[in-house]
């Protein structure tokens, strides 16, 4: 038997953490800001900055051209297109941005099984979903509102009527805010269904463009055959025509529907309800999706 002095426990100075615990709100805020930065490739490799930045630039260039034309043409008193028309015209770019970034935001966490790691922190399922949803919606809002801001500043520099421009700008901002929430929700739901990024991209773009193609084709046919009453109801079946309907009914926009009639205020209420139901529905679907994602 060895003498009792031969074994000894050394105190090598382990200490417990005594700093401030930042808690759930801080974790949620970090997840939000990192996801938002990630949606533009900030804080990620140079290669992943290329696509979002190109799309952002493509989004802003037409606004600059519009402003330049409005200022250069003598005697013009307003911008050649309305604030509310801009997002409808550039919907393909918005769609491509969402399709490339929504899977980036959620699919990678699923594929590399990092979701359980998030939930080992003091955040709940609701925090994760809210942070990701808010980040995607904010990223889309930045994408769609920046060109409007450029147009607004340009029109003020050109000394167009301040009241008119501010009103139009406000309407445009409300409309793109609604669009961002709707698109972000639908895009994230589609992207969260698959851990494979490629399929996520295809699913998001399919969800945005195919209903639009179908709806506008059937609307054109209905218009051509004199069944104009059906047009405003058909618009309920695709995301972008929903936004078109809401802003035509309530935000003084010019519709892109065939015939130019647009949606009346009565039907507009139905449009607004459908949009809000879709936003709430995508939130609920995401919550349901992540109930088991950690297991």
């Amino acid at each position, binding site marked *: 038997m060895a003498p009792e002095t031969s074994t000894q426990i050394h105190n090598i100075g382990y200490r417990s953490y005594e700093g401030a615990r930042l808690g759930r709100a801080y974790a949620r805020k970090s997840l939000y800001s990192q996801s938002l930065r990630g949606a533009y490739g900030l804080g*990620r*490799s140079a*290669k*992943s900055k290329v*696509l979002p930045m190109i799309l952002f630039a493509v989004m802003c260039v037409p606004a600059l051209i519009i402003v330049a034309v409005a200022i250069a043409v003598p005697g013009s008193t307003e911008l050649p297109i309305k604030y509310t028309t801009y997002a409808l015209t550039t919907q*393909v770019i918005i769609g*491509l941005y969402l*399709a*490339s970034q929504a899977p980036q935001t959620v699919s*990678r966490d699923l*594929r*590399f099984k990092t979701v359980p790691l998030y939930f080992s922190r003091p955040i709940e399922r609701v925090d994760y979903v809210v942070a990701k949803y808010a980040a995607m919606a904010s990223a889309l809002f930045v994408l769609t509102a920046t060109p409007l801001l450029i147009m607004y500043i340009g029109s003020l520099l050109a000394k167009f009527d301040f009241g008119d421009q501010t009103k139009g700008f406000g309407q445009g901002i409300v409309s793109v805010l609604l669009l961002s929430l709707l698109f972000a929700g639908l895009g994230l739901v589609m992207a969260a*269904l*698959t851990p*494979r*990024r*490629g*399929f996520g*991209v*295809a*699913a998001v*773009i*399919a969800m945005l*463009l*195919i209903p639009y*193609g*179908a709806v506008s*084709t*059937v609307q*054109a*046919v*209905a218009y*051509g*055959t004199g*069944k104009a009453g*059906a047009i405003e109801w058909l618009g309920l079946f695709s995301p972008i025509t929903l936004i078109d309907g809401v802003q035509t009914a309530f935000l003084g926009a010019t519709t892109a529907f065939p015939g130019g009639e647009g949606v009346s205020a009565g039907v507009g209420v139905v449009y607004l309800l459908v949009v809000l139901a879709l936003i709430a529905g995508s939130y609920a679907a995401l919550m349901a999706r992540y109930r088991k994602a950690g297991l």
Partner: protein
Amino acid sequence: MYNPTVARLTYRALLGRRRALILFALPALLIAISLAVRLLTGVDDKVAAELLGGFALATMVPLIGVIAGTGAIGPEIDDGSIVYLLAKPVKRPTIIMTKLIVAIAITMAFSAIPTLVAGFILNGNGQSIAIAYMIAALVASVAYSALFLLLGTVSRHAVVFGLVYALIWESLFGSLVDGAKTLSVQQWSLTLAEKVAGEGYVDSAVGMPTAVVLLALVTVGATAYAGQRLRRLTLAGEE
């Protein structure tokens, strides 16, 4: 140049589980719209040609081509499991050829057949419009599959670039700049449809010889280059 095992794996990767849903959704939608239009307007050759040209050939065929073409190889490169395939004693061009054949078959099955069915629903193949657009869809399937399979080996964002080509180049620039139509798979395939359909229902911006030469060139060139790309593939880590 054809390996049944690779073909089976590709086929399962494309049609396995939920992925097939995207592929089924499009044709189902086309047929639903055709039924709606037929009920709304009755038989109308002009409407049939517009719907098949505007929705089936301009939107559905390229989208299915993108999904099948890039889906045949993209996800494998993306998650790195392609190394297990490349490590087997199978020639790289053979892998590409096999994947191309599967992609073409799937694109054809999911685009040409629904186009034909929709054509029959719309106007019972009046003026041979259904047959004409089916032929266009068949031809376009080959070129799109080859093109998007190549994109799948070149870029991680293959789906996005494929969509940019299909939606922005072919639809947007094609309708604004006439010259862009010469470089559009959709227009090449339409030249064949033009020959089949009745006068004035289908028109294409490209002449027959140009279209055939360019189609062959793109298909063969893209496939050969994709085979070369696969011979010196570097696997990038996750960005």
